[in-house]
């Protein structure tokens, strides 16, 4: 659905390649696209305006570095301003006060306050060795207090006993006094969801704040929020006074423009990100990551994390070993296809890959995930073990048999075999360790957080000339839809994705295996 900024800009700047500095007209043209990209990413309109102005000032007259195109230059500038606006990393929770330190959680209904409360409590207790008491002040939503109690048991964090009929203010008082008596370090106060224009409930939250005098008042907000993000952040900040923002559902596939909106209007740091429903799904905020996502540059970090979570490391290692030796058979291919399916299929993955947006768009409507993958796996399942190990034996009569057994056609089998052949060839080459791409197979495993951040940062300043030649050839080979250059992503992925190497579609070339998808559109 979305086009990345890079793709949009490349069109505008194609004719400009090679000029010395960005003129005002160039910048204006580019900024129109920047505006569109930001709006599609749900950045609030007012924020977009201020933002593009900032970029304009930096961009006009900026010298274009030789190795990059003007489009890339602008993307880099935009990315930098985004990171700057989103704020620096690692603004942790401020717990510097005499215990018990209160933390107040506020937000709209359904933004994820209760889950986030439990996540933070668990982290403080397990990682930071603080004793935490949680209390739910949500007397409105049915079973909200029970929800926190259940989460408390799951997280091993104590919760304030529920007394029916208590008002939020009474619960807050009781929580503070119990925490003092019980020697707790931190008290987390989870409040009822409320609208940012509900004066009555905002006043109630303010009185809770006055009683608890929280060190931190965190606004919990859904990262999928649209233009309204500015209103809600501004109102909560004005009426209750927030000290930071927690963005939830960052594991969704939204573009996260709300982060920029809220940060820009409140000036308050985004402190944490909630990902997933499990209680350890809490991450520190890193502006680079969100910036890349807003620009549609893909979220390689997410991809790598997802891959790390989903892919069976042992199996992947075995396949990688076999690839190195050049003995990549159909059984291995089937395994790769299965893992690809687990990752959310081709389109799920391409959405996360920088530069892949265009391919994804062109493939929209082609049922890659459920259609092609399933059929390919069915074909392989219909083969005998000997055929899987040595696909060369597949002659016409065997193909007919397999086609009948898998409910496919002989052409599809031919296509699959050709794809396998090409992949095996490519892997053999890479196995020899040529170029950065080759390192994929010698990787050392799952990268740590710092490395991931670095990778994401690298994406902003990519130089297409740094591409390994084999990839450039592939992209130029005409087998990919025009303009689809998966390559820029790959240097960043390079050494760290040992297990993903063989996934069809990742390298570009295996797309030859899907002619109906690639060529028609």
């Amino acid at each position, binding site marked *: 659905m979305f086009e990345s900024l890079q793709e949009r800009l490349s069109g505008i700047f194609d004719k400009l390649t090679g000029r010395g500095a960005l003129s005002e007209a160039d910048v204006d043209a580019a900024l129109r696209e920047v505006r569109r990209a930001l709006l599609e990413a749900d950045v609030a309109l007012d924020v977009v305006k201020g933002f593009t102005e900032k970029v304009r000032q930096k961009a006009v007259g900026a010298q274009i570095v030789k190795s990059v195109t003007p489009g890339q230059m602008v993307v880099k500038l935009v990315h930098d301003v985004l990171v700057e606006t989103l704020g620096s990393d690692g603004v942790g929770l401020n717990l510097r006060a005499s215990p018990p330190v209160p933390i107040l959680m506020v937000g709209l209904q359904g933004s994820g306050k209760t889950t986030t409360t439990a996540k933070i409590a668990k982290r403080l207790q397990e990682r930071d060795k603080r004793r935490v008491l949680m209390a739910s002040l949500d007397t409105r939503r049915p079973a909200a207090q029970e929800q926190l109690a259940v989460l408390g048991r799951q997280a091993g964090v104590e919760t304030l006993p529920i007394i029916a009929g208590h008002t939020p203010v009474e619960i807050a008082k009781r929580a503070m006094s119990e925490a003092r008596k019980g020697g707790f370090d931190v008290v987390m106060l989870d409040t009822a969801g409320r609208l940012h224009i509900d004066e009555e409930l905002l006043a109630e939250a303010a009185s809770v704040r006055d009683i608890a005098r929280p060190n931190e008042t965190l606004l919990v907000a859904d990262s999928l929020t649209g233009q309204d993000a500015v209103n809600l952040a501004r109102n909560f900040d004005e009426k209750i006074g927030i000290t930071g923002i927690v963005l939830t559902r960052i594991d969704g596939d939204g573009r996260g423009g709300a982060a920029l909106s809220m940060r820009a209007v409140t000036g308050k740091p985004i402190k944490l990100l909630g990902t997933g429903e499990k209680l350890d799904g809490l991450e520190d905020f890193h502006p680079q990551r969100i910036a890349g996502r807003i620009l549609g540059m893909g979220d390689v970090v997410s991809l790598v994390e997802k891959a790390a979570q989903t892919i069976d490391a042992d199996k992947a290692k075995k396949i990688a070993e076999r690839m190195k030796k050049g003995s990549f058979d159909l059984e291995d291919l089937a395994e790769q296809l299965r893992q690809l399916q687990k990752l959310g299929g081709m389109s*799920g993955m391409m959405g996360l890959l920088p530069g892949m947006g265009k391919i994804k768009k062109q493939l929209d409507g082609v049922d890659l995930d459920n259609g092609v993958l399933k059929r390919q796996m069915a074909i392989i399942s219909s083969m005998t073990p000997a055929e899987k190990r040595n696909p060369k034996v597949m002659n016409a009569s065997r193909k007919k048999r397999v086609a009948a057994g898998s409910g496919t056609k002989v052409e599809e089998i031919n296509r699959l075999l050709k794809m396998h052949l090409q992949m095996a060839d490519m892997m053999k080459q890479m196995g020899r360790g040529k170029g950065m791409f080759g390192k994929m197979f010698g990787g050392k495993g799952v990268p740590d957080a710092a490395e991931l951040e670095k990778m994401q940062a690298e994406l902003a300043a990519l130089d297409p000339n740094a591409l390994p030649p084999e990839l450039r050839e592939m992209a130029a080979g005409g087998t990919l839809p025009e303009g689809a250059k998966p390559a820029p992503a790959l240097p960043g992925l390079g050494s760290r994705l040992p297990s993903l190497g063989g996934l069809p579609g990742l390298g570009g070339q295996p797309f030859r295996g899907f002619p109906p998808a690639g060529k028609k559109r």
Partner: protein
Amino acid sequence: MSGFLKSLFRRNRDVEESPQAAAMPEAIAPEERRGWLGRLTQGLAKSSKSLTGSITTILTKRKLDQTTLGELEDALIAADLGLATTERIIKAISAGRYDREIAPEDVRKVLSEEIAKVLKPVEVPLDFRGQKPFVVLVVGVNGSGKTTTIGKLGAIAQREGLKVMFAACDTFRAAAIDQLQVWSERTGARLVSRPPGADSAGLAFDALTEARAEQADILFIDTAGRLQNKAGLMAELDKIVRVLKKVDANAPHAVLLVLDATTGQNAMAQAEAFAKTAGVTGIIMTKLDGTARGGILVAIAERFKIPVHAVGIGEQIEDLQPFDAEAFAEAIAGGGG
């Protein structure tokens, strides 16, 4: 049964006081009751004020030129209509009027009419006649308001004298079952549940079997919130649908997608994915009582043409209101207040 239909989703803009309202336990001290349009526009007025204001200032004695259209475009974007839909509407407005002077009221009217044109075809009441039990599967991302919506729907149905059952198939989120339990006590609807962590598809199967045996009129199946990009969770939803079909080949008879009005462009992806996996038959948009205008619904209507049944404009049972394309459009265009 058509009584429920008429009552919950009648077109009449004035909601009459239901005589049984007082019988509802929590019932939700019906403060001063306003008509649907009144309530919605009141909710939206807070937000559309700025929009109205901006349109007025833009257009007083001005020509409908490029600058003006650009500013109108901004106003629609700020309502979450998304770029493509906004641009199409702006084009429609400028057609034949370009460079002519136009009064601010007329622009609002045209704007609202253009939006209503898109929404009118999807203004479809929820029809659950002809099936017993009528199975309603409720889906959506986390925190969109599924359980609350089921509670409200169930309360209204029960009030209409229908035999209602709830199936607590959100066996994942902590206390989700308890939350539906409270709604079941409030409404008198029977709850079918299992301990947390139980298989939701199995529970759906049993609930439908039970609903048949007990001759329930309507069965609401609550599901766990899931982000539409999680393949595993979507597969689980697919399984619930498949399993229901084993009991009744036509079930679920309605699949309701609950969308949060504050959601931005991602709502499109939600509509697409849930429609693909669960075969969404209708949308309910919640949380329209804030400042969010839910303009993404226009984009969804334009692209997917999924019927919209109702909107949630508050926490009370009565705050679940039939969807009214004109009112919704007027509220976005800022003409209703």
